[in-house]
C-alpha cells in the first residue's frame, strides 16, 4: 500500500447490501456515475465501461459481498498498464462507511489527475442517490468527473 495516492471515504445512511448493489449494478451506476461498468462480478472476470467519456476496462480481482470489491482499471490517455480500485464497505451503526482506494498509479500521472478529481463527485452523487433517491447530473459535467 505504499503506492496509495488517495483514500476517499463517505458515510451513507444506508445498508451495506444497498451500497454493494449500487457499486455493481449498471442501472444504479448510470444514475450516480453517468456510466455503467458491465460485468458478472466474479473473480477473474472482465469488466468494461458503457457510456461516459473514457472507455475503461479491467479485471475483477476480489469479490466479497457486501464488504469488499476490487478490480483493475485501464489507465487513460494511452498511459500503459492498469491501476487498482478497491472499495471497502463497513457498517457503523446507522450509517455505512464506504471507502475507495485507487493505487498503482505512480506510472500514470494523467490518470491520477483525472481519477482523483472524479471519485469525490462520484461518491457525493452516490450518497445523494442512496439517501434522497437522486444522483447528480455527473454525465453533463464530464470534465470534472472524468472517472
Amino acid at each position, binding site marked *: 500500500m505504499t503506492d496509495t495516492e488517495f*483514500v476517499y471515504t463517505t458515510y451513507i445512511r444506508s445498508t451495506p447490501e444497498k451500497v454493494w448493489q449500487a457499486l455493481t449494478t449498471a442501472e444504479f451506476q448510470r444514475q450516480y456515475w453517468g456510466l455503467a461498468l458491465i460485468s458478472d462480478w466474479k473473480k477473474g472476470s472482465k469488466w468494461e465501461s458503457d457510456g461516459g467519456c473514457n472507455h475503461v476496462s479491467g479485471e475483477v480481482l476480489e469479490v466479497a459481498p457486501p464488504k469488499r470489491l476490487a478490480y483493475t482499471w485501464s489507465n487513460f490517455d494511452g498511459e500503459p498498464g492498469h491501476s487498482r480500485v478497491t472499495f471497502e464497505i463497513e457498517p457503523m451503526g446507522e450509517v455505512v462507511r464506504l471507502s475507495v482506494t485507487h493505487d498503482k498509479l505512480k506510472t500514470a500521472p494523467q490518470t491520477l489527475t483525472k481519477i482523483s478529481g472524479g471519485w*469525490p463527485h462520484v461518491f457525493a*452523487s452516490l450518497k445523494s442517490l442512496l439517501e434522497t433517491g437522486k444522483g447528480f447530473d455527473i454525465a453533463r*459535467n464530464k470534465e470534472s468527473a472524468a472517472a
Partner: protein
Amino acid sequence: MGTDEDRVFKALADASRRGLLDRLRKKPGLTLGELCEHHDMSRQAVTKHLGLLEAANLVVTRRRGREKLHYLNPVPISEIYARWIGRFEQGRMAALDNLKQALEGEKQ
C-alpha cells in the same frame, strides 16, 4: 445531517487546519511526524487539528505497520459544492476560476 456539515465548516474555519490539508493534497500519505516537520505548531497541536479534520471526514487515515498515514478526503467538500454550486453554475464558475488563475498567475 446538520452536525456532519457543522463539523466540516468548523474544521475548515482555521488556517492551520487548511494548511495541513494543503500539505496532504501535495503529498498524500504523510505520517504525524512528517506533518509536524514544517509547522511551528507543537506535536500536540497538530494531533488536535488532525483529530478535528478526521472527525469531519476531511482526513482519512490508514495504518502501515506502526505508522498512521494521513490522506486528504475531499468528498465532504464535493457534497457542499454539489449542493450549492454544482447544478447550475458549473460552466460559469469554471470560467471565472480560470480567469482568476490566469490573472493571479497561479499554478494549477
